[in-house]
């Protein structure tokens, strides 16, 4: 098929460098490598090698045709080495390869949209957020099955600088095509200014929350908020997109409160301990004494700003006992959740951040005493021989509300 008359004759044809996107190989799963060679005529020629050829070979060819047409590519040689990639991945890799080659109309080729879940609530539970590398599609597909409160599609540290453009498309497509079930759909963008470009691609697909890395001054949060508002207005979107700044340096910690207050959209403040300890030039230990001050600052700033304080990730995914100790301590300090690098960490964290049976029992008694005092019109509430102050009642109320949200009590 040749819709346009050829503009050059065969002898005039110029060689264009081929461009590639994606990965293939015996150890690669759920990805593909696309190589595009531009040509001036002859239509689209697809050379497909796929480990699922007998089952989806035709489907892959049809998809590639459609995507290339939408991108405005009429003539090209396309080599695909497919390792069982899902359609949204195939489409993202084709788009990346075409854009890297500087071809096409710059269209955003969007895969089928699964039902967009309800917008997330400002104060929802954020006990656990599972990091998923933005350039590893195999981890996207089942990320929500493990029951974390949030899934973070990461464009920052887990993505090699040379893969930032392709990961952005992959994450965008995942937001449309992958059912993240009850998980809050989070994206960690790159450090600014690159992170602002990420927003152009990501925001139209309605993530629930954006993590902003390496925040040191409030202006960075404001810049992100502004860009989000611009993109939302371009696309006529109204649903909220929350912000979670990550403080990862001594300066960021010093500015914690101002950062926490920088935007109405900020719902939580968190800390990145790898970078923070590197900034201080100290060793990160599993007890965290070297970062205790910073974590306290984050806690205090978050509480002062009326938002959630969320702890860092725990890096040693093999040591669940150390994780349990860290998380228990973290809750004791006043954090409401942590990051996760592996799904096995999720239940440990949920357990650690859940109120204990003793705490629930005590809160119940306090509330019962409080209610009784209210009924009798007494100003002073007492439990046994102890007086109960209003803050104690408040704390019991908060604890029960949290236990209810976690399903620990009925």
């Amino acid at each position, binding site marked *: 098929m040749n819709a346009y008359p050829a503009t050059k004759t065969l002898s005039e044809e110029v060689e264009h460098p081929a461009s590639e996107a994606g990965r293939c190989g015996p150890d690669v*799963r759920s990805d593909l490598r696309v190589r595009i060679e531009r040509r001036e005529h002859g239509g689209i020629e697809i050379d497909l090698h796929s480990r*699922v050829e*007998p*089952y989806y070979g035709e489907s892959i060819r049809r998809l590639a045709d459609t995507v290339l047409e939408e991108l405005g590519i009429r003539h090209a040689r396309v080599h695909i080495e497919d390792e069982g990639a*899902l359609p949204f991945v195939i489409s993202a890799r084709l788009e990346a390869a075409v854009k890297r080659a500087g071809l096409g109309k710059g269209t955003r080729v969007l895969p089928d949209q699964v039902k967009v879940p309800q917008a997330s609530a400002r104060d929802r539970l954020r006990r656990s957020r599972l990091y998923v590398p933005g350039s590893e599609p195999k981890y996207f597909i*089942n990320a929500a099955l493990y029951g974390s409160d949030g899934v973070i599609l990461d464009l920052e540290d887990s993505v090699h600088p040379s893969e930032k453009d392709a990961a952005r498309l992959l994450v965008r497509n995942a937001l449309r095509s992958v059912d993240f079930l009850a998980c809050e759909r989070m994206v960690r963008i790159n450090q600014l200014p690159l992170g602002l470009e990420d927003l152009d691609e990501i925001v139209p697909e309605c993530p629930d929350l954006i993590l902003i890395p390496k925040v040191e001054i409030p202006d960075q949060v404001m810049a992100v908020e502004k860009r989000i508002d611009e993109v939302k207005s371009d696309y006529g979107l109204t649903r909220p997109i929350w912000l979670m700044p990550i403080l990862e340096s001594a300066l960021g910690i010093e500015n914690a409160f101002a950062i926490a207050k920088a935007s109405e959209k900020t719902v939580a403040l968190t800390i990145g301990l790898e970078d923070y300890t590197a900034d201080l030039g100290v060793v990160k230990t599993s007890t965290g004494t070297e970062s205790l001050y910073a974590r306290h600052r984050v806690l205090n700033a978050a509480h002062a700003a009326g938002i959630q304080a969320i702890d860092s990730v725990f890096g040693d995914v093999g040591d669940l006992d150390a994780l349990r100790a860290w998380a228990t301590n973290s809750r004791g300090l006043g954090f409401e959740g942590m990051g996760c690098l592996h799904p096995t960490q999720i239940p440990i964290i949920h357990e650690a951040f859940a109120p204990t049976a003793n705490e629930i029992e005590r809160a119940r008694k306090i509330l019962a005493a409080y209610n009784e005092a209210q009924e009798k019109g007494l100003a002073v509430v007492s439990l046994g021989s102890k007086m109960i102050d209003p803050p104690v009642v408040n704390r019991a109320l908060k604890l029960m509300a949290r236990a209810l949200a976690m399903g620990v009590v009925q």
Partner: protein
Amino acid sequence: MPVAEKTELLTNAAGRSVLEVVNGRPQTPYLGVGKYRPTGTKASPPIHTAADYPQNGDKVVTDLETALRKCGLRDGMVLSSHHHLRDGDRVALMMLNAAGRLGAKDLVWFPSASFPSQKSAIELMQSGVIDHIEGSMNGPLGDYCTRGKMRGLGVLRSHGGRWQAIQDGEVHIDIAVIAAPSADAFGNCDGSHGKSACGSLGFALADSIYADHVIVVTDNLVPFPCVPCQIQGNNVDYVVQVDSIGDAARIVSGTTQITRSPDRLRIAELVARFLRDARIMRDGFSFQAGAGGIALAFVSYLKQLMKEAGVRARFVRGGSTKLLVELLEEGLTDYILDGQTFDLDGVRSIASNPRHVATSPFTSYNYHGKGNFASMVDAVVLGATEVDLNFNANVVTHSDGRLMHGIGGWQNCLASRCTILAVPSFRDRIPVILDEVTTLCGPGELIDVIVTERGVAINPRRQDLVDAVKGSNLPVRPLADIKAEVERICGGRPCRPKHGHRPVAVVKWVDGTLLDTVWQVNGTF
């Protein structure tokens, strides 16, 4: 060129096309579970006389060729070997190569299972030493067979089906060669000691009883008596001493690691929770799990739940591994009834703990036994390559029809009170739940629960299990729902690859009837 079998096709009780004749023998099509009741007398070995054997009990001969020659090796004979040394085995190829050097042709190799390290058997098939293999084929041997290059038809049997086929005379073993980690000169042998220790030798037991001739090959000849001994020297003709019967590193694994794959861990956890919530996990219960990634993780989750609930099992069945041994040593089970031993901890335990007991396909699985252990197990956790909406399952072929796995004890274990298949809902974009399995290995009426990372599907035939987990927080869903979700994720239903019209192997049911046919696959793989 191989000669295609000229035979009529019949439709069996499962609706599958099966052959009337296989390798020159008339066949019975599958009639349904427990429906086939053959009569008559079991096969028996020829009469031997003690006077023909050395009074001093010394049956050692210089080498395997001598032993084979003394056993009267001829063209067309059935030679058997066993897989208790797994991928580390050297004896099966030693036997086949020795037979080749003696000029034998058209042999039938009757292994209890074959392994990728035995791929040079292909050369022996090409040169005509081996006519065909009756036993599981995977890897290069599976590909060779699936491409239609083997002369005779492959016959795939379960471990129990192998015993059954020997007992009802369908397979008559001329010469059995048994690899023995320990043996004495009389032929008593055992697998629990020696540098090539592997645990139970149960797979070789039937051969030792029913074969015309039995040769024991050992790299650890001990003075009489070899104690303990699972195989009795009274059934053995000759003993051959060699430097090494196997590669220790590939016989048992040194370190048994639980998978880190989040999907597999999730499936394993769901299976364990199912056992608890369905109240199968209770004092005195029993279960069987193998050594695959999901099975190991399942045992580790179940152990946690058993401890929490203060529950102790009466027995667990292996494939034993470090994890089962820990259950035994921590008092969470009274016994391990062990079919094969997968790691060093298993070998150490079976050699030293009287509550870790070797079993055989006879005690566990045999259709011609007066019952067997498998049906007394409360729950079994198995894998599968495919399942279908009728809960039928495939364990031998890939969705493209290529032979991938042997049946092993899989078919026999379906007799358990609760059969659970633990499978991912798709692999490499290929859905595992289909309208109809490519090759039928297990009838759906015996498969009770299918656990995937996306939910737990209970066979509607098992209303008791449906009721038992009502009110639990398990993600119980109809199988068709999971299937539809997976097809949406994968971008539509997969095309079904067309198979060839020539049969290359047959799948036997546990009773010896024909359950299904494996067809030739062309193309590059």
